[in-house]
């Protein structure tokens, strides 16, 4: 399947791309656009204005980031993914809904990467980062404490 998102890799987009490739569509091909009008037919857009796989505000005024929306839409209930969702949420929205101090570091890291590498390169680099974060939290959940 083809997927599209806006150019300029950021924490939410990076997380979504990783999530899509690892848990939804292993053959996912990604396209980076600068305008919603550039999304071709038969392409699923995410983390951009005007598309479903994006930010959503509930009736209570609480905002979800795109990573959280994708977990909801694809019924992904893996608690480790939801742990990562809280991190992406705070790194992206920074609304202090969750207490995830490492979110700020993640945001800085990916923000920095977006300054020195192309979106295609960062697709690869950030996937590795998210692989690592997923493994870390998977082990933490199994051990019930911080893994070494």
């Amino acid at each position, binding site marked *: 399947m083809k997927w599209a998102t806006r150019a300029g890799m950021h924490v939410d987009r990076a997380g979504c791309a990783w999530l899509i490739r690892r848990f939804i569509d292993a053959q996912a091909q990604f396209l980076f656009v600068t305008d919603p009008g550039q999304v071709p037919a038969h392409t699923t857009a995410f983390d951009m*204005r005007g598309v479903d796989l994006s930010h959503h505000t509930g009736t209570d005024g609480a905002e979800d980031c795109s990573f959280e929306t994708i977990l909801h839409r694809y019924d992904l209930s893996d608690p480790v993914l939801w742990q990562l969702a809280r991190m992406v949420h705070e790194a992206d929205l920074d609304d202090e809904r969750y207490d995830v101090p490492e979110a700020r570091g993640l945001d800085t890291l990916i923000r920095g990467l977006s300054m020195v590498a192309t979106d295609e390169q960062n697709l690869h680099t950030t996937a590795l980062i998210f692989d690592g974060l997923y493994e870390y939290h998977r082990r933490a959940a199994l051990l019930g404490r911080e893994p070494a």
Partner: protein
Amino acid sequence: MFMARADSWVLLSYRLPRDPSTPRITVWRNLKRLGVAQLADALVALPADARTREQLEWIAEQVAGFGGEASIWLARPASLALHGQVVSAMVAARTEEYREVLHEAAEAAGLEERERRRVAARLNAKLRRIKRRDFFPPAERDQAHAAVHALATAADVTPGAGRAPR
């Protein structure tokens, strides 16, 4: 890459139904958190960069979700004076926030060490929040940071309450 320009702004123009009032409050609270400059009723601005543009786009999306209308514009003020006016308003708003921190830090200065550290941690969190929306840092920023740092590190002045140095 989209680079920030000193005189380039991203504008959000929006319209929300009068009732219910909750969405209006939600949107306004979010805009306040971003530190926008209010140009007119329901017209706000931030210095343009990739991040601020995206932040305002999400709010536009939120407005649409609440049944309102919103549009995003990239704009430059037609005069230097106008630019200065908008910047001054933003600087004044942040200065006010830093002064609050300075005030709270001064009030906590006489507390015992543990309490002071607790207040310092809270004020540091507050400073982090202010920093995110501080696009034109005033002198009060450094003063506030210094005051909170001093609060966290100063030796205990309360007689008898201090621990012996190791």
